């Protein structure tokens, strides 16, 4: 079966050790993680993990079910590329001297929808948000101008579905039922 890049989005209680528990589920199946981003959410005490991995769909569907089994996981979902909005952020560092010598650079940066976020004594930092391909294109463009340092974040994603996570977590909180579950919602 065809391997593809998928996004797994996991909502969890904000507890230590969970990152490890989550990654074990992927690593014991020899699934490589392409990117991983963890951060708190708008709901206090709830974190979101966004994991990008390449594998077959059935393999990742099983992973998602295993993730749901973790006691501190509130919900876990698998998305194809067209089911989410997503972005990554990349930072590029160039020497100020090179930048000043090449007037054309400023135009290139603008053309790529990137911006300069810092100009220091002898270096400048450029920021671009976009897909991996977009940030990579800018990387290629800047490459001949000698990139001093480059860093790219993991993917952050938001699903296109109409559900409201926050409302559901509130419902979970107040419900007396132990069958109500965001995990499959």
């Amino acid at each position: 079966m065809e391997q593809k890049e998928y996004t797994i989005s996991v909502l969890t209680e904000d507890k230590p050790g969970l990152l490890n528990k989550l990654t074990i589920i992927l690593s014991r199946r020899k699934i490589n993680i392409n990117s991983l981003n963890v951060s708190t959410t708008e709901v206090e005490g709830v974190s979101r993990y966004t994991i990008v991995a390449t594998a077959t769909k059935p393999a990742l569907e099983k992973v998602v079910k295993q993730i749901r089994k973790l006691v501190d996981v509130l919900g876990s979902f698998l998305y194809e590329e067209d089911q989410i909005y997503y972005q990554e952020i990349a930072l590029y560092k160039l020497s100020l001297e090179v930048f000043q010598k090449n007037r054309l650079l400023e135009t290139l940066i603008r053309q790529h929808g990137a911006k300069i976020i810092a100009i220091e004594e002898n270096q400048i930092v450029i920021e671009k948000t976009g897909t991996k391909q977009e940030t990579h294109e800018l990387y290629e463009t800047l490459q001949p101008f000698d990139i001093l340092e480059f860093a790219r974040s993991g993917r952050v994603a938001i699903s296109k579905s109409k559900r409201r996570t926050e409302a559901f977590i509130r419902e979970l909180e107040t419900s007396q039922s132990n069958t109500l579950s965001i995990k499959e919602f």
Partner: protein
Amino acid sequence: MEALVESLEKKLKTERLTGSEAILKCLIEEEVETIFGYPGGAIMPVYDALYDYEDQLKHILTRHEQGAIHAAQGFARSSGKVGVCFATSGPGATNLITGITDAQIDSTPLVCITGQVASHLLGSDAFQETDIIGISMPVTKWNFQITRPEEIPMALAKAFYIAQSGRPGPVLIDITKDAQQQSFDFTYEACERIRSYQPYPELKEQPLKTATELINQAKKPYLIFGQGVTLSGAEKELKEFVEKTGIPAASTLLGLSAFSTNHPLYVGYAGMHGNYGPNVKTNECDVFIAIGMRFDDRVTGDINTYAKQAKVIHIELDPAEIDKNIQTDVAINGDAKQALKALLPLVKSNDHEEWVKEFHECDKIEMDKAIQKSIQPTSELMTMAEVIHKLSIKTQGKSVVITDVGQHQMMAARYYQFDQPKSHITSGGLGTMGFCLPAAIGAKIGKPNREVIAIIGDGGFQMTIQELGVIMQYQVGVKILILNNSFLGMVRQWQQLFFDRRYSFTEMDNPDFIKIAEGYRIAAQRIEKREELNYAFDQWLNTKESSLLEIVVEKEENVFPMVPSGSCVSKIRLE
């Protein structure tokens, strides 16, 4: 006003306790009576507190932490309660890992409490420090480290709730020494809900309907049940369901004893060394109903050729097991007992006489080709099969049978006729040698009024042989049956069949087991001759105390039938 009363009540219930005392109080609140364990530096405050609680909490000192955890497993599986064990940090904690893994894969509810170095030493490679939380992460249902005594009541309440709810499993709580020593105001509240954990899925109507239609229309329906039936206490519902629908039922290894072996609709045990009928009929039925079983590869063989012609209905509590190995047509995600209760009024009364007869024809073939030879051998030495067959008759299938891992395990599964629920305890998913002796000790403590029989190979016996000390010290009335073939029998069988008889490191020189048992003041005898068997059984069984019987069996007996690993279940070999 109400709030005021509540807070006053809470104050009244509050006691100033040390962390260690609090741990014991929590156990008492959870109605724990027995703890299995082994002390050491990092858990000494708890053991010190235990000294004052001896009248409320019985502690069994095993001879190795592996013994403690297997005993807790045996206790849990015979009694249906949570098994509890204590160990110290470092080597104490790591010695629990095999048992924790075993409990995780066989869904056994356990709460393991380990001591840990003081919190200011965490991460410093202190004496006997180990990251047991990190180590046990992939093999526990949940784990948690406590560094402050205030965390104890909530963590333990959660631990008990998680261990026994939904699909049960092992939980590990690691407690730093300072948290055990400091005092705090203790109150206890049992845990009833965790918002991120929903152990009991709600039964959905649609799959029940579709399943009913399939079952009612089936010409050749067939059912396999697993441990899920025992765990949800659905033995009665399963029997009613089978009797009403007339569907032939087979068991997995861990399902054994959930359904009487003597029932006319019981068709045997499915899997690698299971019966002939249940294996071949898997590929002939039209509707396949799996209840509380997880399609382990020892059951399915090659999944690409498994029940392909059938519509598969899977009744299973754990949603992650559904479609994991075998694609289902109807998935009923729920507790086996609830699901069967819901299905019972919907399915129509039926019988499938002709179809059931086909299973009995298979039984005849198996009898001629395999069973007869095994239970009535022509060899001079006894076979494991005949010994277990006789034992089953002697005890009328009423004992709790604990087995280790190997040929004797498969023979017990094949030839012991289980008559009562919760009577078969074995290490199924992990196949842990050394499991039997301590598990039998735990099982007897969990069910003191039942006859508990430990059936062990000479290899596995020597993996936890030191636990004989527990039997001696606490007078645990376990009957031990050693089937001695001077070989690591099961491995030898594979070497014979698949490695050209190259018996590489499977033959063993054994010690004098009788002297060892006697060293532990346990009555023991060894027999070699068939004529001695009956009398030896009587002597061995007719005591209340523990006793050991070593039977020298044929060295190169094989377990047949057999589905070679990864092969198709219909290609089961009869000889």
